[in-house]
């Protein structure tokens, strides 16, 4: 299985969520994070000390899916998460490997654990 981890704009969440739903994913987990990435620093000051305080609130979406399904999810996130032509700040997606998944309620393992129905 794959874990798809996307850092996206908070404004995009509600539409993104319903699109992922339509795709038929089994679940997702959202975390409030703050992000920084190159080229976006604002040089600010704090109590007289110069600091680069440029963290932007973002939301991290994590979806674990079967290997084959992962690409569709990535495409969906890219499509929904994009703002304009190459605009900065739309975020990134990371894909990594998951060895095993276990559903706590049913003790189901593997892909069974992450797909209730269908």
């Amino acid at each position, binding site marked *: 299985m794959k874990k798809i981890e996307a850092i996206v704009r908070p404004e995009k969440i509600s*539409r993104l969520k319903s699109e992922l739903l339509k795709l038929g994913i089994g679940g997702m987990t959202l975390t409030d994070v703050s992000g920084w990435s190159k080229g976006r620093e604002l040089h600010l000051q704090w109590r007289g000390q110069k600091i680069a305080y440029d963290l932007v609130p973002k939301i991290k979406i994590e979806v674990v899916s079967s290997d084959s399904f992962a690409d569709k999810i990535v495409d969906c996130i890219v499509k929904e998460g994009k703002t304009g032509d190459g605009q900065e700040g739309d975020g990134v997606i990371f894909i990594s490997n998951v060895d095993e998944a276990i559903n706590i309620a049913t003790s189901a393992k593997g892909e069974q654990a992450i797909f209730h129905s269908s």
Partner: protein
Amino acid sequence: MTVTIDTGDTTWMLIATGLVMMMTPALGFFEAGLIRSKNSISVLIQTFSGLGILSILWIVIGFTLAFGPSYNGIIGGTQYTAIENVPINEPFQNYATTIPGIGFVAFNMMVAVITPLLITGAFAEKMKWTSFCIFMIVWSILIYCPLAHWVWGGGWLSQIGFYDFGGGIVVHVSAGMGSLAAALVLGRRKYFGPDITLPHNVPLAVIGASFLWLGWYGFNAGGAYAAGGLTFNTLLVTHMASATSSITWILLSWKTAGRPSVIAGINGAIAGLAGVTAASGFITVNSSMVLGAVIGIASFLAIKLIKEKLKIDDVLDVSSVHGVSGIVGTLAVGILAFQSINPNGPNGMLAGNFSQIGIQAVGIGAAILLSFVGTFIILKIIDKTIGLRVKEIEEDVGLDISGHAERAYTK
């Protein structure tokens, strides 16, 4: 009329002054709670620094422009510049004749402070703090002081028999129409739409709304400048308009969005309070319940029109919640007023006087004209010179970090 200080009346005005002062920070909580976390400090500093700046302005020049001896009914003279000649241990001869003159200055300061600050709701999340400061000062001098003079300082509107008890046009129509102009001049926020209008801290907004509600007792019933039957009637009229408008909004939110909403509840309350202000000292408690419901419906629909149809990004809907409400309530004076409630007020239609509503309309028209056009011009000039809006990257990062190097919450 006797002109001696009464300790009961004075105490009431001491309190009313405190209650209205408190409304300014409460406005900040209300607004900050309803916008995104990353911009919440920017609104808190606007209201808090506005309280400082506008208080100083009022002492130095504002009071005398509004309440000094009238130049042809247009503006007050400079007799009270830097509150020179204001009596401390006696009342004014012509205003509030049972409380110290300085008390009249203090109470009206708090009203004068909050009025321009209501417009912050229209440009929250968008405007630079420096431009905000300049705008506040200019708007207060060019729009608030004349209008207050016309209505309360012996100016031409009072001379033609226009009545506005607590500030229906002086405060709410002027701030509401100023907000409409501000929203047009500043334009929409990035990604304008329902996704960015999630309030970040609802309890904070409810705290703000609750203290606005309480403060409004002082705002309206303080307008009696005395403690008695009229004062208590005004307080209860104010309370009931808020109650009915709040419930009206909750029901409308339920009908339109499928769920009763607390944000609707607090917005409805503010709309009711703003709306009833003009009429609060002239009508019965039973009328106020009807008026509250009408104000609730009008202001709710106005948002649908202005924000959802016309896509004008008046961030916190000041044009509807204060502007439209204020218009409805000021007109209502011409319908619902009874001299049996307030012998110093007018009779309205229900009391058989069909001419008052026309006079009220004149006042409303004058206020709309002055505040909409005036605000538009002031903001355009500021925009062309030092600019109004923050940069796009600053809007992304949030005005708190970019403009104030502060975050509302850390661990």
